[in-house]
Protein backbone atom coordinates (compact mmCIF):
# COMPACT_ATOMS: atom_id res chain seq x y z
CA UNK A 1 0.00 0.00 0.00
CA UNK A 2 1.68 3.22 -1.02
CA UNK A 3 2.35 5.82 1.60
CA UNK A 4 -0.09 8.69 1.38
CA UNK A 5 1.92 11.72 0.48
CA UNK A 6 -0.78 14.32 0.15
CA UNK A 7 -4.00 14.03 1.94
CA UNK A 8 -6.88 16.12 0.72
CA UNK A 9 -8.16 17.71 3.78
CA UNK A 10 -11.91 17.43 4.19
CA UNK A 11 -11.98 13.69 4.09
CA UNK A 12 -15.70 13.33 4.47
CA UNK A 13 -18.03 15.75 2.87
CA UNK A 14 -21.02 15.58 5.11
CA UNK A 15 -19.88 13.89 8.28
CA UNK A 16 -20.63 16.97 10.28
CA UNK A 17 -22.99 17.71 13.07
CA UNK A 18 -25.95 19.67 11.88
CA UNK A 19 -27.23 22.51 13.95
CA UNK A 20 -30.55 21.76 15.55
CA UNK A 21 -32.66 24.69 14.61
CA UNK A 22 -32.89 23.95 10.96
CA UNK A 23 -36.00 23.23 9.04
CA UNK A 24 -34.66 21.88 5.82
CA UNK A 25 -32.01 19.42 6.83
CA UNK A 26 -31.43 18.08 3.41
CA UNK A 27 -30.59 21.51 2.09
CA UNK A 28 -28.25 22.02 5.02
CA UNK A 29 -26.43 18.85 4.24
CA UNK A 30 -26.18 19.79 0.63
CA UNK A 31 -24.70 23.13 1.47
CA UNK A 32 -22.24 21.62 3.89
CA UNK A 33 -21.20 19.12 1.28
CA UNK A 34 -20.70 21.80 -1.30
CA UNK A 35 -18.58 23.83 1.09
CA UNK A 36 -16.41 20.81 1.77
CA UNK A 37 -16.09 20.19 -1.88
CA UNK A 38 -14.69 23.65 -2.28
CA UNK A 39 -12.22 23.00 0.52
CA UNK A 40 -11.22 19.77 -1.13
CA UNK A 41 -10.61 21.59 -4.35
CA UNK A 42 -8.43 24.13 -2.61
CA UNK A 43 -6.26 21.48 -0.95
CA UNK A 44 -6.10 19.66 -4.24
CA UNK A 45 -4.84 22.74 -5.97
CA UNK A 46 -2.29 23.32 -3.24
CA UNK A 47 -0.94 19.80 -3.62
CA UNK A 48 -0.94 20.05 -7.35
CA UNK A 49 1.14 23.19 -7.16
CA UNK A 50 3.58 21.44 -4.83
CA UNK A 51 3.78 18.44 -7.10
CA UNK A 52 4.47 20.48 -10.18
CA UNK A 53 7.03 22.44 -8.22
CA UNK A 54 8.98 19.30 -7.37
CA UNK A 55 8.93 18.15 -10.96
CA UNK A 56 9.96 21.57 -12.13
CA UNK A 57 12.92 21.68 -9.75
CA UNK A 58 14.20 18.37 -10.98
CA UNK A 59 13.83 19.37 -14.59
CA UNK A 60 15.53 22.67 -13.84
CA UNK A 61 18.59 20.96 -12.40
CA UNK A 62 18.67 18.76 -15.46
CA UNK A 63 18.65 21.80 -17.66
CA UNK A 64 21.76 23.10 -15.90
CA UNK A 65 23.50 19.81 -16.41
CA UNK A 66 22.50 19.67 -20.03
CA UNK A 67 23.81 23.16 -20.63
CA UNK A 68 27.14 22.39 -19.05
CA UNK A 69 27.32 19.20 -21.03
CA UNK A 70 26.64 21.13 -24.17
CA UNK A 71 29.49 23.49 -23.45
CA UNK A 72 31.86 20.62 -22.78
CA UNK A 73 30.86 18.91 -25.99
CA UNK A 74 31.50 22.10 -27.91
CA UNK A 75 34.90 22.52 -26.36
CA UNK A 76 35.75 18.92 -27.00
CA UNK A 77 34.72 19.12 -30.61
CA UNK A 78 36.98 22.09 -31.08
CA UNK A 79 39.91 20.43 -29.40
CA UNK A 80 39.38 17.22 -31.33
CA UNK A 81 39.49 19.02 -34.65
CA UNK A 82 42.65 20.66 -33.51
CA UNK A 83 44.21 17.34 -32.62
CA UNK A 84 46.99 16.44 -34.94
CA UNK A 85 47.95 12.76 -34.82
CA UNK A 86 51.48 13.58 -35.87
CA UNK A 87 52.00 15.88 -32.97
CA UNK A 88 51.21 13.12 -30.55
CA UNK A 89 54.23 12.74 -28.31
CA UNK A 90 54.51 9.51 -26.53
CA UNK A 91 57.30 9.59 -24.07
CA UNK A 92 57.89 6.88 -21.61
CA UNK A 93 57.59 9.40 -18.88
CA UNK A 94 54.13 10.28 -19.97
CA UNK A 95 52.96 6.74 -19.75
CA UNK A 96 54.14 6.27 -16.24
CA UNK A 97 53.79 9.75 -14.93
CA UNK A 98 50.33 10.49 -16.16
CA UNK A 99 47.61 10.25 -13.67
CA UNK A 100 45.51 7.20 -14.35
CA UNK A 101 42.02 8.01 -15.50
CA UNK A 102 39.49 7.63 -12.80
CA UNK A 103 35.90 8.48 -13.44
CA UNK A 104 34.33 10.54 -10.71
CA UNK A 105 32.73 8.20 -8.25
CA UNK A 106 30.39 10.52 -6.46
CA UNK A 107 27.91 8.56 -4.49
CA UNK A 108 24.57 9.85 -3.42
CA UNK A 109 24.45 10.05 0.29
CA UNK A 110 21.93 10.99 2.93
CA UNK A 111 19.07 10.16 0.60
CA UNK A 112 16.50 9.51 3.28
CA UNK A 113 17.50 11.93 5.94
CA UNK A 114 15.27 14.38 7.69
CA UNK A 115 16.45 17.21 5.46
CA UNK A 116 15.46 15.50 2.23
CA UNK A 117 11.90 14.82 3.38
CA UNK A 118 9.37 16.22 0.92
CA UNK A 119 7.38 19.16 2.16
CA UNK A 120 3.97 17.49 2.30
CA UNK A 121 5.41 14.62 4.26
CA UNK A 122 7.09 17.08 6.55
CA UNK A 123 3.73 18.69 7.16
CA UNK A 124 2.21 15.31 7.90
CA UNK A 125 5.04 14.66 10.29
CA UNK A 126 4.48 17.95 12.00
CA UNK A 127 0.93 16.99 12.69
CA UNK A 128 2.19 14.23 14.92
CA UNK A 129 2.52 14.65 18.62
CA UNK A 130 5.89 15.90 19.79
CA UNK A 131 7.93 13.83 22.21
CA UNK A 132 8.07 15.09 25.77
CA UNK A 133 10.43 18.02 26.18
CA UNK A 134 13.14 16.07 27.97
CA UNK A 135 15.83 18.29 26.54
CA UNK A 136 15.11 20.91 29.15
CA UNK A 137 16.85 18.59 31.56
CA UNK A 138 20.02 18.57 29.49
CA UNK A 139 21.81 21.36 31.37
CA UNK A 140 21.43 19.39 34.56
CA UNK A 141 23.07 16.27 33.29
CA UNK A 142 26.58 15.28 34.28
CA UNK A 143 27.60 13.24 31.31
CA UNK A 144 26.79 15.89 28.76
CA UNK A 145 24.34 13.82 26.79
CA UNK A 146 21.03 15.16 25.61
CA UNK A 147 18.09 14.29 27.73
CA UNK A 148 15.93 13.35 24.81
CA UNK A 149 18.47 10.80 23.61
CA UNK A 150 17.41 8.47 26.37
CA UNK A 151 13.78 8.65 25.29
CA UNK A 152 14.13 8.56 21.57
CA UNK A 153 17.32 8.74 19.52
CA UNK A 154 16.84 8.75 15.75
CA UNK A 155 20.55 8.43 15.09
CA UNK A 156 21.08 5.55 17.47
CA UNK A 157 21.44 2.81 14.93
CA UNK A 158 23.58 4.86 12.65
CA UNK A 159 25.94 5.69 15.48
CA UNK A 160 26.08 2.04 16.40
CA UNK A 161 26.92 1.06 12.87
CA UNK A 162 29.53 3.75 12.52
CA UNK A 163 31.26 2.69 15.70
CA UNK A 164 31.28 -0.87 14.53
CA UNK A 165 32.74 0.06 11.18
CA UNK A 166 35.46 2.18 12.67
CA UNK A 167 36.29 -0.52 15.15
CA UNK A 168 36.44 -3.07 12.38
CA UNK A 169 38.84 -0.96 10.40
CA UNK A 170 41.03 -0.64 13.44
CA UNK A 171 40.97 -4.34 14.05
CA UNK A 172 41.76 -5.11 10.48
CA UNK A 173 44.67 -2.76 10.51
CA UNK A 174 46.06 -4.32 13.63
CA UNK A 175 45.56 -7.77 12.26
CA UNK A 176 47.32 -6.83 9.13
CA UNK A 177 50.23 -5.48 11.06
CA UNK A 178 50.42 -8.55 13.19
CA UNK A 179 50.43 -10.68 10.13
CA UNK A 180 53.10 -8.60 8.62
CA UNK A 181 55.18 -9.06 11.68
CA UNK A 182 54.70 -12.74 11.66
CA UNK A 183 55.14 -12.90 8.00
CA UNK A 184 58.32 -14.68 7.10
CA UNK A 185 59.06 -11.97 4.61
CA UNK A 186 59.86 -9.77 7.53
CA UNK A 187 62.78 -12.03 8.18
CA UNK A 188 64.27 -10.67 5.10
CA UNK A 189 64.53 -7.27 6.62
CA UNK A 190 65.73 -8.67 9.88
CA UNK A 191 68.32 -11.05 8.66
CA UNK A 192 69.76 -8.61 6.30
CA UNK A 193 71.61 -7.11 9.19
CA UNK A 194 72.69 -10.29 10.69
CA UNK A 195 75.34 -12.65 9.64
CA UNK A 196 73.34 -15.74 9.77
CA UNK A 197 74.23 -19.17 8.69
CA UNK A 198 72.92 -20.41 5.44
CA UNK A 199 69.94 -22.16 6.90
CA UNK A 200 68.33 -18.91 7.74
CA UNK A 201 69.58 -17.10 4.74
CA UNK A 202 67.93 -19.70 2.61
CA UNK A 203 64.65 -18.04 3.41
CA UNK A 204 65.85 -14.69 2.31
CA UNK A 205 65.81 -15.50 -1.34
CA UNK A 206 62.29 -16.73 -1.41
CA UNK A 207 61.09 -13.97 0.80
CA UNK A 208 62.69 -11.31 -1.28
CA UNK A 209 60.76 -12.39 -4.30
CA UNK A 210 57.57 -12.17 -2.36
CA UNK A 211 58.49 -8.76 -1.22
CA UNK A 212 58.29 -7.19 -4.63
CA UNK A 213 54.61 -7.73 -5.33
CA UNK A 214 53.84 -6.05 -2.09
CA UNK A 215 55.18 -2.72 -3.18
CA UNK A 216 52.36 -1.72 -5.54
CA UNK A 217 49.93 -3.08 -3.04
CA UNK A 218 50.94 -0.59 -0.40
CA UNK A 219 51.04 2.17 -2.90
CA UNK A 220 47.51 1.46 -3.94
CA UNK A 221 46.33 1.53 -0.42
CA UNK A 222 48.08 4.80 0.15
CA UNK A 223 46.56 6.28 -2.97
CA UNK A 224 43.17 5.10 -1.95
CA UNK A 225 43.56 6.76 1.34
CA UNK A 226 44.74 9.98 -0.16
CA UNK A 227 42.03 9.99 -2.74
CA UNK A 228 39.37 9.93 -0.11
CA UNK A 229 40.44 13.15 1.40
CA UNK A 230 43.16 14.95 3.17
CA UNK A 231 41.74 13.90 6.47
CA UNK A 232 42.82 10.40 5.80
CA UNK A 233 46.38 11.48 5.23
CA UNK A 234 46.68 11.82 8.94
CA UNK A 235 46.01 8.17 9.31
CA UNK A 236 49.65 7.31 9.06
CA UNK A 237 50.73 9.42 11.94
CA UNK A 238 47.77 8.13 13.82
CA UNK A 239 48.68 4.60 13.05
CA UNK A 240 52.11 5.24 14.41
CA UNK A 241 50.55 6.57 17.55
CA UNK A 242 48.20 3.67 17.75
CA UNK A 243 51.00 1.25 17.32
CA UNK A 244 52.85 2.81 20.11
CA UNK A 245 49.80 2.79 22.20
CA UNK A 246 48.94 -0.77 21.64
CA UNK A 247 50.24 -3.45 23.85
CA UNK A 248 53.50 -5.06 23.25
CA UNK A 249 51.78 -6.91 20.50
CA UNK A 250 50.78 -3.75 18.77
CA UNK A 251 50.82 -3.63 15.05
CA UNK A 252 54.05 -3.35 13.30
CA UNK A 253 54.62 -0.11 11.53
CA UNK A 254 55.91 -0.41 8.03
CA UNK A 255 57.94 2.67 7.90
CA UNK A 256 59.57 2.22 11.20
CA UNK A 257 63.00 0.87 11.04
CA UNK A 258 61.76 -2.58 11.52
CA UNK A 259 65.09 -4.22 11.05
CA UNK A 260 66.62 -2.43 13.95
CA UNK A 261 63.73 -3.40 16.00
CA UNK A 262 63.52 -6.97 15.05
CA UNK A 263 67.15 -7.45 15.30
CA UNK A 264 66.96 -9.27 18.48
CA UNK A 265 64.05 -11.30 17.40
CA UNK A 266 65.87 -13.94 15.58
CA UNK A 267 66.25 -17.01 17.56
CA UNK A 268 69.54 -18.66 17.53
CA UNK A 269 71.54 -15.76 16.30
CA UNK A 270 72.18 -12.95 18.60
CA UNK A 271 73.41 -9.53 17.93
CA UNK A 272 76.44 -10.60 19.74
CA UNK A 273 77.41 -12.24 16.55
CA UNK A 274 77.46 -8.92 14.78
CA UNK A 275 80.63 -7.06 14.50
CA UNK A 276 80.75 -3.89 16.46
CA UNK A 277 80.68 -1.74 13.38
CA UNK A 278 77.51 -3.33 12.19
CA UNK A 279 75.88 -2.93 15.51
CA UNK A 280 76.85 0.67 15.63
CA UNK A 281 75.46 1.25 12.23
CA UNK A 282 72.28 -0.52 13.10
CA UNK A 283 71.78 1.43 16.20
CA UNK A 284 72.57 4.74 14.71
CA UNK A 285 70.54 4.25 11.60
CA UNK A 286 67.10 5.30 12.75
CA UNK A 287 67.42 8.66 14.26
CA UNK A 288 64.02 8.59 15.76
CA UNK A 289 63.96 5.05 16.87
CA UNK A 290 65.80 5.60 19.99
CA UNK A 291 63.85 3.18 21.95
CA UNK A 292 64.81 0.41 19.68
CA UNK A 293 68.36 0.70 20.78
CA UNK A 294 67.92 -0.74 24.15
CA UNK A 295 67.49 -4.05 22.54
CA UNK A 296 70.96 -4.09 21.31
CA UNK A 297 72.86 -3.58 24.46
CA UNK A 298 72.95 -6.98 25.83
CA UNK A 299 72.13 -9.60 23.35
CA UNK A 300 72.75 -12.33 25.79
CA UNK A 301 70.71 -10.96 28.61
CA UNK A 302 67.56 -10.48 26.66
CA UNK A 303 67.18 -14.09 25.93
CA UNK A 304 67.38 -15.07 29.49
CA UNK A 305 65.20 -12.29 30.42
CA UNK A 306 62.51 -13.39 28.13
CA UNK A 307 61.94 -16.41 30.16
CA UNK A 308 61.11 -14.36 33.15
CA UNK A 309 59.13 -11.60 31.64
CA UNK A 310 56.14 -11.52 29.40
CA UNK A 311 57.38 -12.66 26.07
CA UNK A 312 55.30 -10.39 23.93
CA UNK A 313 56.59 -7.29 25.50
CA UNK A 314 60.12 -8.41 25.33
CA UNK A 315 62.19 -7.16 22.60
CA UNK A 316 65.50 -8.65 23.12
CA UNK A 317 68.28 -9.46 20.88
CA UNK A 318 68.39 -13.10 20.79
CA UNK A 319 71.52 -14.73 21.73
CA UNK A 320 72.71 -17.98 20.55
CA UNK A 321 72.21 -19.72 23.79
CA UNK A 322 70.85 -23.14 23.81
CA UNK A 323 68.52 -22.45 26.63
CA UNK A 324 67.29 -19.29 25.10
CA UNK A 325 66.85 -20.70 21.67
CA UNK A 326 63.43 -22.05 22.21
CA UNK A 327 62.47 -18.76 23.68
CA UNK A 328 63.71 -16.57 20.96
CA UNK A 329 61.69 -18.05 18.14
CA UNK A 330 58.68 -17.75 20.33
CA UNK A 331 59.61 -14.20 20.90
CA UNK A 332 59.92 -13.44 17.27
CA UNK A 333 56.51 -14.78 16.64
CA UNK A 334 54.90 -13.39 19.67
CA UNK A 335 56.29 -10.01 19.25
CA UNK A 336 54.20 -8.00 16.90
CA UNK A 337 54.72 -4.45 17.65
CA UNK A 338 57.35 -2.68 15.82
CA UNK A 339 57.86 -0.11 18.43
CA UNK A 340 59.82 -1.75 21.13
CA UNK A 341 58.63 -0.78 24.49
CA UNK A 342 61.19 1.28 26.23
CA UNK A 343 61.69 -1.22 28.98
CA UNK A 344 62.62 -4.20 26.95
CA UNK A 345 66.17 -3.15 26.56
CA UNK A 346 67.69 -6.31 27.34
CA UNK A 347 69.95 -6.53 30.19
CA UNK A 348 69.72 -10.21 30.33
CA UNK A 349 71.82 -12.35 32.50
CA UNK A 350 75.37 -12.48 31.55
CA UNK A 351 76.16 -15.92 32.81
CA UNK A 352 74.16 -17.75 30.22
CA UNK A 353 75.71 -15.80 27.47
CA UNK A 354 79.12 -16.62 28.60
CA UNK A 355 79.02 -20.32 28.04
CA UNK A 356 77.37 -19.90 24.71
CA UNK A 357 79.75 -17.25 23.69
CA UNK A 358 82.31 -19.81 23.28
CA UNK A 359 80.10 -21.43 20.80
CA UNK A 360 80.32 -18.44 18.54
CA UNK A 361 83.71 -19.38 17.37
CA UNK A 362 82.68 -21.62 14.57
CA UNK A 363 80.08 -19.13 13.38
CA UNK A 364 82.24 -17.02 11.27
CA UNK A 365 84.41 -14.02 11.15
CA UNK A 366 81.93 -11.53 12.47
CA UNK A 367 81.17 -13.43 15.59
CA UNK A 368 84.74 -13.95 16.66
CA UNK A 369 85.57 -10.33 17.23
CA UNK A 370 82.68 -9.91 19.53
CA UNK A 371 82.91 -12.96 21.69
CA UNK A 372 86.47 -12.30 22.60
CA UNK A 373 85.54 -8.85 23.73
CA UNK A 374 83.01 -9.90 26.25
CA UNK A 375 85.28 -12.61 27.43
CA UNK A 376 87.90 -10.10 28.17
CA UNK A 377 85.58 -7.86 29.98
CA UNK A 378 82.88 -8.68 32.32
CA UNK A 379 80.68 -11.57 31.49
CA UNK A 380 77.63 -9.53 30.88
CA UNK A 381 76.94 -7.64 27.77
CA UNK A 382 79.00 -6.92 24.88
CA UNK A 383 80.50 -3.56 25.48
CA UNK A 384 80.58 -2.28 21.95
CA UNK A 385 76.95 -2.72 21.24
CA UNK A 386 75.90 -1.06 24.41
CA UNK A 387 78.35 1.72 23.92
CA UNK A 388 76.45 3.43 21.17
CA UNK A 389 73.41 3.12 23.25
CA UNK A 390 74.29 5.83 25.60
CA UNK A 391 70.87 7.11 25.29
CA UNK A 392 69.52 3.75 25.96
CA UNK A 393 70.49 3.64 29.56
CA UNK A 394 67.50 5.66 30.39
CA UNK A 395 65.37 3.13 28.72
CA UNK A 396 67.38 0.33 30.05
CA UNK A 397 66.33 1.10 33.49
CA UNK A 398 63.18 -0.72 33.09
CA UNK A 399 65.31 -3.66 32.32
CA UNK A 400 64.38 -5.69 35.23
CA UNK A 401 66.99 -5.82 37.79
CA UNK A 402 64.82 -7.88 40.00
CA UNK A 403 64.03 -10.35 37.33
CA UNK A 404 66.67 -12.77 38.32
CA UNK A 405 69.86 -12.69 40.21
CA UNK A 406 71.95 -13.36 37.16
CA UNK A 407 70.15 -10.59 35.48
CA UNK A 408 71.07 -8.22 38.16
CA UNK A 409 74.59 -9.20 37.91
CA UNK A 410 74.74 -8.56 34.27
CA UNK A 411 72.55 -5.54 34.13
CA UNK A 412 74.44 -3.29 36.40
CA UNK A 413 77.63 -4.20 34.75
CA UNK A 414 76.19 -3.59 31.38
CA UNK A 415 74.61 -0.38 32.29
CA UNK A 416 77.82 0.86 33.65
CA UNK A 417 79.46 -0.09 30.47
CA UNK A 418 76.85 1.73 28.60
CA UNK A 419 77.23 4.75 30.69
CA UNK A 420 80.93 4.78 30.73
CA UNK A 421 81.28 3.69 27.20
CA UNK A 422 83.79 1.27 28.26
CA UNK A 423 83.94 -1.92 30.03
CA UNK A 424 84.30 -1.38 33.64
CA UNK A 425 84.56 -4.40 35.75
CA UNK A 426 82.74 -4.46 38.84
CA UNK A 427 79.48 -3.70 40.20
CA UNK A 428 78.21 -6.88 38.83
CA UNK A 429 77.19 -7.85 42.24
CA UNK A 430 74.85 -4.95 42.37
CA UNK A 431 71.34 -5.82 41.71
CA UNK A 432 70.44 -2.41 40.56
CA UNK A 433 71.10 -0.86 37.28
CA UNK A 434 73.11 2.29 37.74
CA UNK A 435 71.94 4.24 34.77
CA UNK A 436 69.90 7.31 34.84
CA UNK A 437 70.06 8.27 38.39
CA UNK A 438 67.82 11.23 37.85
CA UNK A 439 64.85 9.17 36.86
CA UNK A 440 63.89 6.91 39.70
CA UNK A 441 64.38 3.31 38.83
CA UNK A 442 61.31 1.59 37.64
CA UNK A 443 60.35 -1.90 38.49
CA UNK A 444 61.07 -3.72 35.38
CA UNK A 445 58.44 -6.40 35.65
CA UNK A 446 55.83 -3.82 36.09
CA UNK A 447 56.84 -2.04 33.00
CA UNK A 448 57.00 -5.25 31.16
CA UNK A 449 53.55 -6.31 32.05
CA UNK A 450 52.06 -3.09 30.93
CA UNK A 451 53.92 -3.42 27.70
CA UNK A 452 52.75 -0.12 26.48
CA UNK A 453 54.58 0.97 23.45
CA UNK A 454 53.08 4.36 22.94
CA UNK A 455 54.85 5.99 25.77
CA UNK A 456 58.00 5.04 24.04
CA UNK A 457 58.58 8.29 22.27
CA UNK A 458 57.51 10.56 25.06
CA UNK A 459 58.98 8.49 27.77
CA UNK A 460 62.17 7.73 26.03
CA UNK A 461 63.25 11.30 25.55
CA UNK A 462 62.86 11.90 29.22
CA UNK A 463 64.83 8.81 29.90
CA UNK A 464 67.36 9.75 27.40
CA UNK A 465 67.88 13.11 28.93
CA UNK A 466 68.26 11.45 32.26
CA UNK A 467 70.54 8.91 30.77
CA UNK A 468 72.72 11.51 29.25
CA UNK A 469 72.97 13.27 32.52
CA UNK A 470 73.90 10.14 34.30
CA UNK A 471 76.90 9.28 32.22
CA UNK A 472 78.18 12.72 32.75
CA UNK A 473 77.72 12.51 36.42
CA UNK A 474 79.24 9.11 36.64
CA UNK A 475 82.29 9.92 34.76
CA UNK A 476 84.33 7.44 36.66
CA UNK A 477 83.26 4.04 37.60
CA UNK A 478 83.99 4.68 41.20
CA UNK A 479 80.73 6.24 42.00
CA UNK A 480 78.74 3.40 40.64
CA UNK A 481 79.03 1.13 43.54
CA UNK A 482 77.96 3.80 45.95
CA UNK A 483 75.08 4.98 43.89
CA UNK A 484 73.79 1.58 43.02
CA UNK A 485 71.93 0.70 46.19
CA UNK A 486 70.02 3.93 46.46
CA UNK A 487 69.44 4.01 42.78
CA UNK A 488 67.79 0.64 42.80
CA UNK A 489 64.98 1.89 44.97
CA UNK A 490 64.74 5.04 42.98
CA UNK A 491 64.64 3.03 39.85
CA UNK A 492 61.81 0.92 40.99
CA UNK A 493 59.88 3.97 41.88
CA UNK A 494 60.69 5.48 38.56
CA UNK A 495 59.60 2.37 36.83
CA UNK A 496 56.31 2.50 38.59
CA UNK A 497 55.82 6.10 37.73
CA UNK A 498 56.75 5.52 34.18
CA UNK A 499 54.39 2.65 33.90
CA UNK A 500 51.57 4.67 35.24
CA UNK A 501 52.50 7.54 33.05
CA UNK A 502 52.58 5.29 30.08
CA UNK A 503 49.19 3.92 30.84
CA UNK A 504 47.78 7.34 31.43
CA UNK A 505 49.21 8.66 28.29
CA UNK A 506 47.99 5.71 26.34
CA UNK A 507 44.45 6.24 27.50
CA UNK A 508 44.61 9.91 26.76
CA UNK A 509 46.01 9.36 23.35
CA UNK A 510 43.42 6.76 22.62
CA UNK A 511 40.68 9.09 23.69
CA UNK A 512 42.08 11.88 21.63
CA UNK A 513 42.37 9.66 18.65
CA UNK A 514 38.89 8.37 18.94
CA UNK A 515 37.48 11.82 19.40
CA UNK A 516 39.39 13.12 16.46
CA UNK A 517 38.30 10.20 14.39
CA UNK A 518 34.67 10.70 15.19
CA UNK A 519 34.83 14.35 14.43
CA UNK A 520 36.42 13.77 11.14
CA UNK A 521 34.21 11.02 9.92
CA UNK A 522 30.93 12.65 10.61
CA UNK A 523 27.96 11.08 8.91
CA UNK A 524 29.69 10.15 5.72
CA UNK A 525 28.69 6.58 5.10
CA UNK A 526 30.66 6.37 1.90
CA UNK A 527 33.98 7.27 3.44
CA UNK A 528 33.48 4.98 6.38
CA UNK A 529 32.66 2.06 4.17
CA UNK A 530 35.36 2.81 1.68
CA UNK A 531 37.95 3.05 4.41
CA UNK A 532 36.87 -0.23 5.82
CA UNK A 533 36.90 -1.89 2.45
CA UNK A 534 40.30 -0.42 1.68
CA UNK A 535 41.69 -1.97 4.80
CA UNK A 536 40.04 -5.23 3.99
CA UNK A 537 41.36 -5.31 0.51
CA UNK A 538 44.84 -4.48 1.54
CA UNK A 539 44.45 -7.12 4.18
CA UNK A 540 43.93 -9.97 1.82
CA UNK A 541 46.77 -10.73 -0.49
CA UNK A 542 44.44 -12.50 -2.85
CA UNK A 543 42.76 -9.31 -3.77
CA UNK A 544 45.95 -7.68 -4.81
CA UNK A 545 45.67 -8.87 -8.37
CA UNK A 546 42.17 -7.60 -8.75
CA UNK A 547 43.07 -4.33 -7.20
CA UNK A 548 46.12 -3.85 -9.29
CA UNK A 549 44.06 -4.44 -12.35
CA UNK A 550 41.74 -1.79 -11.08
CA UNK A 551 44.57 0.64 -10.76
CA UNK A 552 45.88 -0.01 -14.18
CA UNK A 553 42.70 0.84 -15.88
Amino acid at each position, binding site marked *: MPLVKRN*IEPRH*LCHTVLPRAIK*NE*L*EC*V*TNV*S*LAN*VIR*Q*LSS*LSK*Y*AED*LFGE*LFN*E*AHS*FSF*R*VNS*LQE*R*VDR*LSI*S*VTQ*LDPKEEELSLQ*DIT*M*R*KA*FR*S*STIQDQQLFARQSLPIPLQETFDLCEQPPPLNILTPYRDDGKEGLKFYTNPSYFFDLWREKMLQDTEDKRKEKRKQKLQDPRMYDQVYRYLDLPGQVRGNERTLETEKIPRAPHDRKKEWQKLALGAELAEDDSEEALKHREANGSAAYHDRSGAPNYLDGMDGPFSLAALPYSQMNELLNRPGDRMYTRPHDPPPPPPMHHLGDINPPSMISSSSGFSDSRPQSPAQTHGFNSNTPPPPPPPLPPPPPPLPSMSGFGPRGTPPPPIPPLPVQQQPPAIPPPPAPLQIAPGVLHPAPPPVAPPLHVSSPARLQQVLDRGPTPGQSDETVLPPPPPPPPLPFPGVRSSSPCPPGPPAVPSFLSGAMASPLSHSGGKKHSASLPPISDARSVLLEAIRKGIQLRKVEEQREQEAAKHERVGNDVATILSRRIAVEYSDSEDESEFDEGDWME
Partner: protein
Amino acid sequence: MLSVKMAGQEDPVQREIHQDWANREYIEVITSSIKKIADFLNSFDMSCRSRLATLNEKLTALERRIEYIEARVTKGETLT
Protein backbone atom coordinates in the same frame (compact mmCIF):
# COMPACT_ATOMS: atom_id res chain seq x y z
CA MET B 1 -57.51 12.69 -9.01
CA LEU B 2 -55.85 10.58 -6.50
CA SER B 3 -52.53 10.88 -8.14
CA VAL B 4 -52.80 14.62 -8.43
CA LYS B 5 -53.87 14.87 -4.83
CA MET B 6 -51.02 12.65 -3.70
CA ALA B 7 -48.63 14.65 -5.69
CA GLY B 8 -49.97 17.82 -4.21
CA GLN B 9 -49.77 16.41 -0.67
CA GLU B 10 -46.22 15.18 -0.98
CA ASP B 11 -45.19 17.99 -3.08
CA PRO B 12 -43.11 19.89 -0.59
CA VAL B 13 -41.51 16.74 0.78
CA GLN B 14 -41.13 15.14 -2.58
CA ARG B 15 -39.86 18.36 -4.00
CA GLU B 16 -37.35 18.50 -1.27
CA ILE B 17 -36.34 14.94 -1.81
CA HIS B 18 -36.13 15.41 -5.52
CA GLN B 19 -34.11 18.52 -4.97
CA ASP B 20 -31.94 16.67 -2.57
CA TRP B 21 -31.34 13.94 -5.07
CA ALA B 22 -30.43 16.47 -7.67
CA ASN B 23 -28.05 18.17 -5.27
CA ARG B 24 -26.45 14.94 -4.36
CA GLU B 25 -26.00 13.99 -7.92
CA TYR B 26 -24.43 17.35 -8.53
CA ILE B 27 -22.09 16.89 -5.60
CA GLU B 28 -21.32 13.39 -6.75
CA VAL B 29 -20.33 14.67 -10.16
CA ILE B 30 -18.08 17.22 -8.57
CA THR B 31 -16.41 14.77 -6.21
CA SER B 32 -15.87 12.23 -8.94
CA SER B 33 -14.27 14.96 -11.01
CA ILE B 34 -12.07 15.79 -8.07
CA LYS B 35 -11.08 12.15 -7.89
CA LYS B 36 -10.31 12.13 -11.55
CA ILE B 37 -8.15 15.20 -11.14
CA ALA B 38 -6.33 13.54 -8.25
CA ASP B 39 -5.79 10.41 -10.29
CA PHE B 40 -4.55 12.40 -13.19
CA LEU B 41 -2.14 14.31 -11.00
CA ASN B 42 -0.77 11.09 -9.49
CA SER B 43 -0.22 9.43 -12.82
CA PHE B 44 1.26 12.60 -14.24
CA ASP B 45 3.65 12.77 -11.33
CA MET B 46 4.69 9.14 -11.74
CA SER B 47 5.23 9.36 -15.47
CA CYS B 48 7.06 12.63 -15.13
CA ARG B 49 9.37 11.23 -12.50
CA SER B 50 10.12 8.16 -14.56
CA ARG B 51 10.95 10.28 -17.57
CA LEU B 52 13.11 12.57 -15.53
CA ALA B 53 14.90 9.56 -14.09
CA THR B 54 15.58 8.26 -17.59
CA LEU B 55 16.87 11.68 -18.51
CA ASN B 56 19.07 11.65 -15.46
CA GLU B 57 20.54 8.33 -16.42
CA LYS B 58 21.27 9.51 -19.91
CA LEU B 59 22.84 12.69 -18.62
CA THR B 60 25.04 10.77 -16.22
CA ALA B 61 26.17 8.40 -18.93
CA LEU B 62 26.92 11.35 -21.20
CA GLU B 63 28.86 13.09 -18.49
CA ARG B 64 31.00 10.04 -17.86
CA ARG B 65 31.70 9.63 -21.55
CA ILE B 66 32.65 13.25 -21.90
CA GLU B 67 34.93 12.97 -18.90
CA TYR B 68 36.65 10.05 -20.46
CA ILE B 69 37.04 11.73 -23.80
CA GLU B 70 38.36 14.85 -22.18
CA ALA B 71 40.91 12.78 -20.32
CA ARG B 72 41.97 11.15 -23.57
CA VAL B 73 42.21 14.34 -25.51
CA THR B 74 43.82 16.71 -23.07
CA LYS B 75 47.53 16.47 -22.44
CA GLY B 76 49.38 16.92 -19.26
CA GLU B 77 48.04 16.24 -15.81
CA THR B 78 50.90 14.18 -14.51
CA LEU B 79 50.97 12.55 -11.17
CA THR B 80 53.32 14.87 -9.45
